[in-house]
């Protein structure tokens, strides 16, 4: 339990699940909680420490998730995820992944995605579920039953409203606005409008001193794609100049577009290696220019290098004899910014076929190792080995015939067995497992890679069932 101190008053500021079960509530006097529960562990609140931790988290999210991230009150982070979720497979995988990542660091978080900042704020705090996604346009339905305390109003107004008998957002929004404004000021109406999306509430993205950012404001709003492209080009030049003085290169650049109607949009461009190449960066940013909706016009463009890494200019060795090695990273960047998965395959030390190929980053060092096997390998592997019916002489002859996907094939030739032992250090169930792989060829010349689970003699090594694992070319 965390105890906050204001003057001589000590109140409960935060509790964990066990304390909640025992009856402690946020906001109750600490002495009362101590009287209720014996053996309570009290920790003094550290407002500044919390704030700086949340700020660090927000900066991490800024680099990882979306260009527009800001701190939300004392205990939250708000992100504009529009156009950023597809890179992580959609809204649900993104939010679940985020909550899981935080839990991996020992942080309990609740996440909500909704149409407006206000509603996402309220839903995340008022419900007990870890991950909630409100479909587009259903905000009003989702927030009706939420308590008025989730409206981001000052506590005096909340208690004043409670005295009048208001409990939920729905009740409050159904009440005529004029008397409320007369009594509590315009804040109530503003927060309600923000929650229901009637008033836009731009998220002012978090920035730190070391973040390199260049901004250009326009005296007249701009809107045409060519004009935007022209100014992106100018901003990139400024950004590269700023980075050059620090000997850094861009890994991730965010363009934030401020429209005249007080909303913002963002574009993000990522690169595989640090870059400071003006045409390349301009091209990356301009490639998604059609995603910007200028509306009534754009009044300000801001370009920030969210993620930077040391970048050194290298003297290229000019040689007429040697073949020039082409750097493919510009291509990888433009493919990657369209959300394509890129990888190279590299050997992994394992004898189990499905485990001996691993994906590595396309820009990782070329190590040059190779698979040690001299046995021919099939060029296509099935994602999951498929059951086949075979007639075979045990223990160590290739099948005489096999039935796969309903088609019976007579086997003319076969090679094997190649014995693969299970890896007990990966899975305990593979302690004694054995697979005997055979390559077989049917009458038409189709070649397959099949295996029998087990050595054909000892039932502890496998079930003696046959599987087809790969297709030879």
């Amino acid at each position, binding site marked *: 339990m965390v105890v906050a101190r204001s003057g001589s008053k000590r109140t409960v500021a935060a509790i964990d699940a066990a304390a909640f079960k025992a009856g402690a509530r946020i906001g109750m006097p600490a002495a009362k909680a101590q009287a209720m529960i014996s053996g309570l562990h009290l920790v003094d609140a550290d407002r500044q420490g919390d704030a700086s931790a949340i700020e660090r988290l927000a900066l991490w999210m800024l680099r990882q998730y979306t260009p527009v991230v800001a701190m939300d009150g004392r205990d939250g982070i708000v992100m504009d995820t529009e156009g950023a979720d597809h890179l992580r497979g959609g809204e649900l995988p993104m939010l679940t992944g985020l909550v899981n990542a935080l839990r991996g660091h020992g942080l309990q978080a609740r996440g909500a995605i909704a149409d407006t900042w206000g509603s996402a704020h309220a839903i995340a705090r008022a419900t007990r579920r870890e991950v909630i996604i409100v479909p587009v346009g259903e905000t009003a339905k989702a927030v009706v039953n939420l308590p008025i305390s989730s409206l981001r109003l000052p506590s005096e107004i909340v208690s004043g409203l409670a005295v009048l008998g208001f409990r939920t957002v729905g009740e409050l929004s159904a009440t005529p606005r004029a008397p409320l404004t007369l009594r509590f000021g315009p804040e109530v109406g503003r927060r309600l409008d923000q929650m229901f999306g009637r008033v836009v509430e731009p998220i002012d993205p978090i920035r730190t001193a070391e973040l390199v950012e260049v901004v250009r404001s326009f005296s007249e709003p701009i809107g045409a794609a060519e004009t935007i492209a022209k100014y992106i080009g100018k901003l990139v030049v400024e950004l590269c100049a700023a980075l050059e003085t620090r000997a850094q290169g861009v890994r991730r650049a965010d363009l934030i577009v401020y429209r005249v109607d007080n909303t913002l949009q963002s574009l993000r461009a990522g690169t595989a290696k640090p870059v400071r190449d003006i045409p390349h960066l301009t091209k990356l940013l301009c490639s998604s220019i059609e995603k910007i909706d200028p509306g009534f016009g754009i009044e300000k463009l801001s370009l920030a290098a969210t993620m930077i890494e040391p970048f050194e200019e290298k003297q290229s060795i000019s040689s007429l004899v040697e*073949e020039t090695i*082409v*750097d*493919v990273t*510009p*291509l*990888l960047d*433009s*493919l990657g910014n*369209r959300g*394509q*998965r*890129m*990888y*190279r*395959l*590299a*050997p992994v030390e394992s004898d189990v*076929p499905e485990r*001996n*190929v691993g994906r590595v980053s*396309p820009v990782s060092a*070329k*190590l*040059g190792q*190779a*698979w040690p*096997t001299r046995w*021919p*390998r*099939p*060029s*296509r*592997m*099935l*994602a999951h080995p498929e059951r086949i019916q075979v007639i075979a002489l045990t223990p160590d002859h290739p099948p005489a015939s096999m039935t796969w996907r309903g088609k019976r094939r007579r086997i*003319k*030739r*076969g*090679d094997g067995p190649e014995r693969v032992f299970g890896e007990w250090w990966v899975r305990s169930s593979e302690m004694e497992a054995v697979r005997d792989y055979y*390559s*077989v*060829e049917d*009458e*038409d*010349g*189709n*070649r397959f890679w099949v295996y029998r689970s087990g050595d054909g003699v000892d039932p502890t090594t496998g079930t003696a069932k046959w599987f087809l694992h*790969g*297709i*030879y*070319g």
Partner: protein
Amino acid sequence: MPITAANPVISELQDRIRRLEGGAARKGEVLSFGIAEIDAKLPGGGLARGALHEVAGGGADAVHGAAAALFVAGIVARTKGDVLWCLTRPDLFAPALAQAGLHHDRVIYVEADREEDVLTNFEEGLRFGGLGAVVAELVRLPMTASRRLQLAAEASGTIGIALRRWRRPTEAADFGQPTAATTRWRISVLPSEPLPVPGIGRARWLAELIRARAGEAAEFEIGACDATGRISLSPHARDGQDQARRSRNFA
């Protein structure tokens, strides 16, 4: 045609046509198989670089694309530089490609969720110009798309190979539709080379050159790629087409 070669007007016209057709027919810019019989059938003596080629599997391989993939791997193994391999179904087994001479360090896989994205990636890879080859596994290849790809390949000089692979065997009839590809191959598996002992010998394929721009169709029985990506002419084919066919039936 020896008569036209003598006629200066016609040879001049042929030159002009060649210039109109673009850089695809530039001399020396070909990737030869190193087998005289096959190279002789291809205009320029090999597969033109800076052009789009189409390869599909025959029979069951139209769906699996196993032999076709190895044939393609053998071709791109003999280029220089990185290779971009665009696909939607990640079921290639890299050790097999390495055995066909295509080292895994050279191949960058680009996996997309949608078929259209594969086409876009393919074109972007071809336009980039710094790659050794670009391979894309495609179900559909419409005429317009293939024309764009061919132009992109011509502009950059990168060899582009569309590895056609269908979801169902019946869809493979799509391979009859015209595209702008310079050559079109169909690779079917044949029984492997017989060994004096029980076992499977070197794999053999029937490589049908279905279409070649400014060339003739042909078919070859070849031995699968060796460790440097080179195919060999199967000894049976030397006796002529008819016998080759028969040997396929009883082998």
